[in-house]
């Protein structure tokens, strides 16, 4: 791997211990993946933020790094944490967990990292341009970045994204290279897709089929797929497979299919079957959780309009970025949802907060990604459906 003289001096320890350790991580990853050198990145998103995910081991690592004086060189923000920084008590998060979570966030803050804890940085103004290189970590954000924005990122781990943020570059391999961005599977969509839950069901189905290939979609009309739906599609594929890039004909900035790509059809029956497979409970939910990935202002508006003047029968969370919540506060959506018995929750989501410890066993969602992780990581029974359906369960 070719290193510039500055990169070499960082590796030799001339810029301090935190930089040296970060360089060592980037060089090791470059070796493992056969990178020819480093590529500058314009932003970084750090995963492994929830104390529920990283535990005491992760907290110790981050505290050590902060003590060594680590500072980020580029705009850097966080994946969702295990709780809303302000409303954790309202959510029912245990106090000891809250204390540990705040210690994790304090360590990040001392490194100069923005306290935006969200999987949808692109809803709060962080939108890299086509071809721009970044180092993002959260799987659905990675997919959106590569696919919908046409920018370039690998699916970083917590330490590798942090190392990229501290050094300002990342090893040049994988999705940073043209040849890794073409699609080896084409899915012709014949099923009518109307809602996020439909796109999530398509994603859950396609992710399992894709294996190591990037999927391309044909047959989705531009007017029938907004950014929220593409977000839902990518998030579900990242969860059910490990898809980090997809193309949609006529919609995404890139649409490149390799010669000899496999072609399959997604029919109306497949949609029904996939939606059904995401439900694992026939009893009503205790919690209705919307906003996986974090809700856009339009998605919050939709919930507010549906619950206006009503009382929701179960607990309701609409999870979003803090900046998006502030917009919802100003537009009156938050108070409408609160009047119906719900909460607009920032910084966290149903996948990374300590749900079981909070006593929940059955949760409803409209997200293909949440459906998968609520079952596998949170031990929940899942009710899957459109926003309208799950609000009325």
């Amino acid at each position: 791997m070719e290193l510039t003289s500055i990169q070499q001096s960082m590796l030799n320890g001339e810029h301090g211990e935190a930089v040296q350790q970060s360089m060592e991580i980037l060089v090791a990853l470059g070796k493992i993946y056969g990178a020819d050198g480093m590529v500058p990145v314009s932003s970084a998103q750090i995963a492994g933020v929830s104390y529920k995910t990283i535990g005491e081991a992760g907290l110790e690592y981050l505290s050590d790094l902060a003590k060594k004086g680590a500072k980020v060189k580029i705009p850097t923000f966080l994946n969702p944490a295990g709780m809303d920084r302000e409303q954790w008590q309202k959510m029912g998060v245990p106090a000891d967990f809250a204390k540990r979570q705040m210690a994790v966030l304090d360590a990040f803050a001392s490194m100069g990292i923005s306290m935006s804890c969200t999987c949808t940085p692109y809803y709060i103004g962080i939108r890299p341009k086509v071809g721009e290189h970044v180092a993002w970590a959260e799987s659905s954000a990675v997919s959106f970045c590569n696919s919908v924005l046409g920018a370039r990122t690998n699916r970083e781990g917590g330490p590798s994204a942090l190392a990229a943020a501290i050094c300002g570059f990342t090893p040049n391999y994988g999705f940073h290279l043209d040849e890794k961005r073409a699609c080896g599977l084409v899915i012709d969509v014949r099923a009518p897709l109307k809602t996020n839950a439909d796109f999530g069901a398509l994603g859950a189905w396609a992710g399992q089929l894709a294996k190591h290939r990037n999927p391309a979609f044909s047959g989705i009309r531009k007017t029938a797929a907004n950014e929220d739906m593409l977000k839902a599609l990518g998030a579900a594929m990242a969860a059910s497979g490990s898809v980090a890039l997809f193309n949609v004909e006529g919609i995404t900035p890139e649409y490149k299919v390799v010669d000899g790509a496999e072609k399959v059809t997604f029919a109306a029956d497949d949609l029904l079957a996939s939606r059904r497979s995401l439900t694992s409970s026939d009893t009503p939910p205790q919690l209705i959780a919307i906003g996986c990935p974090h809700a856009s202002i339009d998605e919050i508006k939709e919930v507010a309009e549906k619950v206006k003047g009503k009382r929701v029968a179960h607990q309701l969370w609409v999870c979003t970025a803090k900046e998006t919540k502030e917009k919802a506060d100003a537009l009156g959506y938050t108070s409408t949802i609160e009047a119906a018995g719900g909460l607009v929750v920032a910084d966290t989501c149903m996948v990374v907060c300590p749900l079981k410890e909070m006593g929940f066993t059955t949760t409803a969602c409209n997200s293909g990604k949440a459906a998968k992780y609520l079952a596998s990581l949170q031990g929940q029974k899942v009710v899957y459906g459109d926003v309208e359906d799950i609000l009325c369960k």
Partner: protein
Amino acid sequence: MQINGRSIARGIGEGEVLLCHDAISFLGDIDPKSGICVAPKHAIEGKNIAGKVLVFPQGKGSTVGSYVLLQLAKNGKAPAAMVNVEAEPIIAVGAIISKIPMVDKLEKNPFDLLKDGMKVKVDGDNGTLSMA
């Protein structure tokens, strides 16, 4: 005898070989307080990795495994060095942040060459393994 490989994490570590034919998920498989493998039916179930030159194919499982290596190091229960057949990011990152010397891709298959209890030296700076 010296065998050449690839440097993954710098530093020099010496100790007795512990061969492990299974991939390791440090989160879950290894107790961070004792260094003992607690995974049922794992190739090194019940064995302690502390102070050993741990030879295994590669890491697997949660990326939090990197942090568990750091906890082991802080508790004085980390391996003296690690040898992987082919490194992947979880173990590579864990070795670097925990300062555990590590090499991979040795010229010869370490499982043919090494036996449990042999004394060896791993040179993570130069990417070599040597036997007395």
